[in-house]
């Protein structure tokens, strides 16, 4: 089925989210839609999937104009979508989930479970999805849940499959699995629209790449286009893809975790007997798939979660029992994983968020009285120093873009004199320009002698920043490597040191570690030497 979008325009008030977008997806084509966050990719797909009505333009299927009033119309026309947030019922089996809404029945209206199960199994086998139809969704790893979503779309006879940022939640191995499945689907004659902002993945899988910037199509490129060409198209200016940094000159140990055990909310250990030292003037990156104790480790470091056992030292002083405020006062800076939940009070003005953890100290407070003039002048100078784009320092922080919100946090945290900076997913969801900015500032801190600990599930980021890479798996450090380590080795460490399919729950038969290296082979055009942040060190 040939899909054509002609002159799609969608406005939200004065904002033009999609400006006369033309897009043609040929049958059996993997068509990548590349653009920064907020470029209008999702809006375009919402139009295509019937979630939003376009103001202008038309959708053509095999040359015939179609109008989608709801997702049901789009599904009926053979368009399937795998959302970034999966729409699955955790306590249902795979078969129950995929047949939900299109239940197979037999006379007199009984569920035909056998037929449903058979169909799921057939689809699974035909496209190498490796999904057990009887597994409960809640027991499945994220990568397999995604495949369940794909089966759901296939069962509804989707000829065009929209995958919205499908790799954001996957490990390198799972990503490679997904790409293999995408190729199988393509061989079966189905077309795929692959939405991403990760250059390398787009280059690896797409047949054609359409780049969107600020709601308009700015170019179409073959997958052989270089990373820097795509990146500058995406951002609209030449982009520095590599973080420039001198070799680290590590000093004394600043942050010392010694046999740290941290319980999760249920009281089970999430971090197990973890020992790690971060020296002044170095960046240690913690790599690992999300949910392996990184969040709990961060919270324990900052004092938001009690330490179960072990010692935490800052410059040799035991801080394991200190409150968050004491630790912050002792020179710890913290960039939380979830900036809107943990980092900012969205309703507060930018100025208030800039002083959110120093408001009680001089010069911002005299006794219990706030010095609003001082708060304001500090905010004004920070806003210009960190290039925070806001209408005023009194604007509510929630009105800022993600990149500028992160700059507010950065301005607050590294605006103080730090001894150690803990940054968790510091660039998640940010555009290339903001990533560049955040990375530069973090390296700057290192060069000033701050001990920096980065926790990130993006390998690119770890490679770009870290002077040493520690891999975390099931609450433990499975290995510490120099940044020259090949991706395949990290992939093995990320699934447990022995590299086997350990910890793979029911429902998948894919060996996780072995295929990882295929995707992360550095792009020849960009690669110079192996510290292997292969070319486009940003996503």
């Amino acid at each position, binding site marked *: 089925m040939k899909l054509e979008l002609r002159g799609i325009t969608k406005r*939200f*008030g004065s*904002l033009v*989210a999609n400006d006369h977008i033309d897009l043609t997806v040929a049958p059996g084509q993997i068509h990548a839609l590349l653009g920064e*966050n*907020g470029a*209008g*990719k*999702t*809006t375009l797909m*919402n139009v295509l999937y019937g979630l*939003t009505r376009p103001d202008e333009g038309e959708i053509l299927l095999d040359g015939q104009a179609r109008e989608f009033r709801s997702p049901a119309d789009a599904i009926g026309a053979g368009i399937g979508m795998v959302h*970034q*947030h*999966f729409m*699955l019922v*955790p306590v249902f089996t795979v078969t129950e989930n995929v047949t939900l809404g299109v239940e197979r029945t037999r006379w007199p209206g009984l569920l035909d479970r056998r037929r449903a199960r058979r169909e799921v199994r057939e689809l699974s086998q035909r496209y190498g999805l490796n999904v057990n139809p009887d597994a409960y969704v*809640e027991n499945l790893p*994220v990568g397999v*849940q995604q495949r369940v979503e794909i089966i759901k779309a296939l069962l509804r006879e989707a000829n065009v499959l929209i995958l919205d*940022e499908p790799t*954001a*939640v996957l490990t390198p191995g799972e990503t490679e699995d997904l790409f293999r499945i995408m190729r199988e689907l393509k061989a079966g004659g189905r077309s795929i629209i692959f939405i991403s902002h990760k250059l390398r993945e787009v280059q690896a899988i797409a047949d054609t790449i359409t780049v969107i910037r600020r709601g308009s199509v700015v170019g179409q490129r073959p997958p052989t286009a270089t990373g820097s060409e795509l990146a500058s198209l995406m951002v609209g200016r030449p982009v520095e893809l590599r973080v420039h940094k001198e070799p680290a000159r590590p000093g004394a140990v600043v942050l010392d975790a010694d046999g740290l055990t941290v319980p999760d909310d249920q009281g089970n250990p999430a971090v197990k007997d973890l020992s790690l030292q971060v020296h002044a003037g170095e960046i240690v990156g913690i790599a690992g798939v*999300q*949910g392996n104790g990184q969040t709990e480790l961060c919270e324990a470091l900052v004092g*938001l979660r009690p330490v179960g056992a072990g010692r935490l030292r800052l410059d040799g002083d035991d801080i394991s029992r200190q*409150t*968050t*405020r004491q*630790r*912050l*006062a002792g020179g710890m800076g*913290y960039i*939380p994983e*979830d900036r*809107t*939940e*943990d980092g*900012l*009070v*969205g*309703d*507060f003005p930018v100025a*208030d968020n800039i002083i*959110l953890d120093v*408001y*009680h100290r001089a010069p911002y407070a005299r006794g*219990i*009285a*706030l010095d*609003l003039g001082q708060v304001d002048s500090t905010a004004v100078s920070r806003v210009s120093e960190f290039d925070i784009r806001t209408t005023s320092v009194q604007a509510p922080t*929630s*009105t800022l*873009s*993600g*990149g500028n919100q992160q700059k507010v946090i950065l301005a607050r945290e590294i605006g103080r004199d730090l001894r150690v900076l803990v940054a968790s997913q510091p660039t*998640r*969801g940010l*555009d290339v320009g903001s990533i560049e900015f955040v990375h530069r500032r973090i390296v700057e801190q290192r060069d000033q002698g701050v001990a920096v600990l980065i926790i990130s*599930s993006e390998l690119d980021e770890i490679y770009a920043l870290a002077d040493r890479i520690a891999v975390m798996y099931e609450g433990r450090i499975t290995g510490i490597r120099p940044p020259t380590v090949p991706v395949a080795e990290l992939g093995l460490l990320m699934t447990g040191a022995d590299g086997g399919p350990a910890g793979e729950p029911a429902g998948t038969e894919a060996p996780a570690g072995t295929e990882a290296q295929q995707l992360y082979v550095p792009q020849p055009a960009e690669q110079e030497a192996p510290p292997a942040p292969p070319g486009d060190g940003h996503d």
Partner: protein
Amino acid sequence: MTEQGGVGGSAPRASTDPGGTEPGRPPFGKVIIQAIIQGNSVVVTVAAFAAAIVIGGLLIAFTDPVVLHAWSQFTAAPGNAFAQAWDSAAGAYAAMFEGAIINPHTVASALQYNSISAAFQTGSVSAIFDPLSETAVNATPLIFAGLSVALAFRAGLFNIGGTSQFIGGALLATWLGFGVPLPLVLHAIVVLIGAFAGGAAIGWVVGALKAWTGAHEVIVTIMLNYVMIYLLSWLLGTSAMQRPGRADLITPFIDGNAQLPHLAGPSLRINASFLIALAAAAGVWWLLQRSTIGFEFRSVGANPRAARTAGMSVTGSWVLVMTIAGGLAGLAASAVVQGTDHTLTFQSYGTYGIDAITVALLGRARPLGTVLAALLFGALHAGGVAMQGLTQTPVDIVTVIQALIVMFIAAPPLVRAMFRLRGARAAGPEQALAKGWNG
């Protein structure tokens, strides 16, 4: 992804945790109240008031037997039916206005005297200001109790416990008032502090239970209301508190030294408590907007997780804000015990605790708004009493109008539709998408 209303930052976490609950999502009730307080413009508030007055007028008219009789003969005299309905409602509201703001008859009778001094001596000047005095007197406890609810709400807590905190303050204040002989001025101040302390103690219990055991403040405050009501009923019957020679639940009068002075002569009930209430509103404003403590309260109320991450003590803020809020509700008891009644009965706590929630909502949880809303309710009460006396309309209509105001405030889309206002959120879900377009 992140085009969808800025949820992108937490997207991978939500996806990796299919069965998990989303942390940090405030409970539904709090979301609604937040929406009421933040989403309503002043225009909506005024429009809601107007709508309540109109519907209240219809209720007044169509519960009046005269009007009903006229309408039963509608076909014979349709004009009369409408005229009777209008007269009934207009008469009731006019009486209400005369009881709450100013009564033209008192002005006219004062003007009959040739000299100003004569007018003062006969009391006809003070009669002119009697309605306003009554409005202020009725508003005073509502200002205190409304501030209590508003302050707690700004820290994210829903204080339903105005009643128990009022009783706590009233018991301590009354006992200090009649039981402890002290000199002039000092006695009044001690009793005032006692009222604050009594309420604060009850508020502290709520905050401490929430902070240390996780008990929900709504449940705790409601339960404490019962505890304090029965404590009051028991204590008023003991020899320590009951007025000698009385069988009903009433305490002795408090000492003259402990009473708050009248502001405009003995014939008007307005007293210093009204000024203290205004000062308290100014104090709460300063605390919230200009102090580090208020900064903490507001941070904890707006995003407790971010507040904790920034090193604030969320539990400490809860305890402190409930203590201060309890103290404010205790001061409402001072307005009654020290200001007007000079004694404590089993009826003294009235409905202040519940009305305070309405007042704080109407005032959008801001000190100035709370004062204005309390004055409005004070006027409705003062006017309602006059209305019942002059016309045969029952005073309960005031309660109905109050309830209608709250209903309209709580249903802004309805009010907007009725008055064809363009709502701030008219764009609905599309606006969320547009917002996300910025990144």
